[in-house]
């Protein structure tokens, strides 16, 4: 087959496609569309363009027939008539076309599927490793100077060692001018406090929140963990009397903030320090461990 015959064959095929397409058009439009499309077909340059045109006419027929059904208006007039009642034109044109509605529906379905996928993946990320978060509140048994922070509300139970005072004798003059020798004051120093107080330092008590409930999601995703040391000042009822402060960071600002939030939330659930069995105001540090255990 020569190239010229090939081109003729393609033209013939295109015209045949157009004729078939036009025949499927609504009655009264078939002849008009066939002649119009054949004329326009011949004006297209190139066989490929013509074939595309012919295939497009098939689609155009479908659209025209569909719109004709929608309009539900009987077609009047002949192929040569200038007036036809063909129309997808409606007085009450909907705001959104059917095609747009379909597109939106498909887009919504895709969005829903994507959302479900993301939720599933997120749950797997959070729960699949199943890191049971461990809340270790480590109490440190260190002596705490409660007098410095609590002032007069704290009894002063700790015997303060008095440095030995060794002062030279002071001579003072009497009104009579006679020298009076004063004894060495070191012998008259205040009596050393020898009473010992049984102090038991407090800490997080029953009902104290657990770190798992305060584990920041951002830290979870990043696998951040660590131990924060927080100083809390509580009264005899186990309530905070001042804002807890961070003494030692976990290395993560998120976890540090979570530790402070946890310490605040624990107000009322602290175990008060006791002195001789009596609850007293006190400040003490404790550790909060944010741990992702594998």
């Amino acid at each position, binding site marked *: 087959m020569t190239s010229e015959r090939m081109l003729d064959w393609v033209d013939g095929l295109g015209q045949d496609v157009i004729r078939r397409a036009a025949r499927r058009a609504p009655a009264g439009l078939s002849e008009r569309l066939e002649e119009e499309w054949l004329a*326009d077909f011949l*004006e*297209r340059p190139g066989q490929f363009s013509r074939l595309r*045109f012919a*295939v497009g*006419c098939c689609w*155009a027929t479908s*659209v025209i027939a569909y719109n004709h059904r929608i309009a539900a208006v009987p077609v009047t007039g002949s192929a040569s008539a200038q007036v036809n009642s063909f129309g997808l*034109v409606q007085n009450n044109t909907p705001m959104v076309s059917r095609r747009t509605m379909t597109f939106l529906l498909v887009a919504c379905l895709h969005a829903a599927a994507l959302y479900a996928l993301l939720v599933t993946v997120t749950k797997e990320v959070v729960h699949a490793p199943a890191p049971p978060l461990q809340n270790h509140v480590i109490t440190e048994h260190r002596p705490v100077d409660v007098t410095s922070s609590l002032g007069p509300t704290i009894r002063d139970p700790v015997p303060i060692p008095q440095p030995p005072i060794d002062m030279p004798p002071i001579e003072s003059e009497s009104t009579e001018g006679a020298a009076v020798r004063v004894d060495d004051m070191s012998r008259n120093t205040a009596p050393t406090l020898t009473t010992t107080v049984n102090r038991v330092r407090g800490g997080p008590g029953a009902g104290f929140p657990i770190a798992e409930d305060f584990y920041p999601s951002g830290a979870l995703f990043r696998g951040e963990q660590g131990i924060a040391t927080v100083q809390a000042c509580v009264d005899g009822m186990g309530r905070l009397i001042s804002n807890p402060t961070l003494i030692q960071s976990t290395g993560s600002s998120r976890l540090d903030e979570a530790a402070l939030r946890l310490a605040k939330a624990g107000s009322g659930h602290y175990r008060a320090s006791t002195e001789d069995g009596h609850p007293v105001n006190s400040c003490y540090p404790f550790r909060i461990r944010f741990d992702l255990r594998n």
Partner: protein
Amino acid sequence: MGKQDREVRMSLQTMKVLEAFLENPTDQLSGAEVHRRSRLASGTLYPILLRLEAAGWFVSRWESIDPSSAGRPRRRLYRMTPTGLKRAGEVFASFSRGVFA
């Protein structure tokens, strides 16, 4: 004319067709010429032309030739009606205001 000035659902493709005619509103264009100006595919172009014609925005007529002597089929020529010209102007004006008619 017997046609009513009816609302036409406006789309980007419809506006391209109108734009092709608004280059010179008195022109009578065949579908092939509208395609050259709007670059719309035939599957999109002809339904729009028929829709606008049904709405009274366009009128069409056959080319005044004898197909047998010309050796080709007659073209269908479309022209904007005064109503179509007015409505198309309104559409583009409201579009430029950000209000899609």
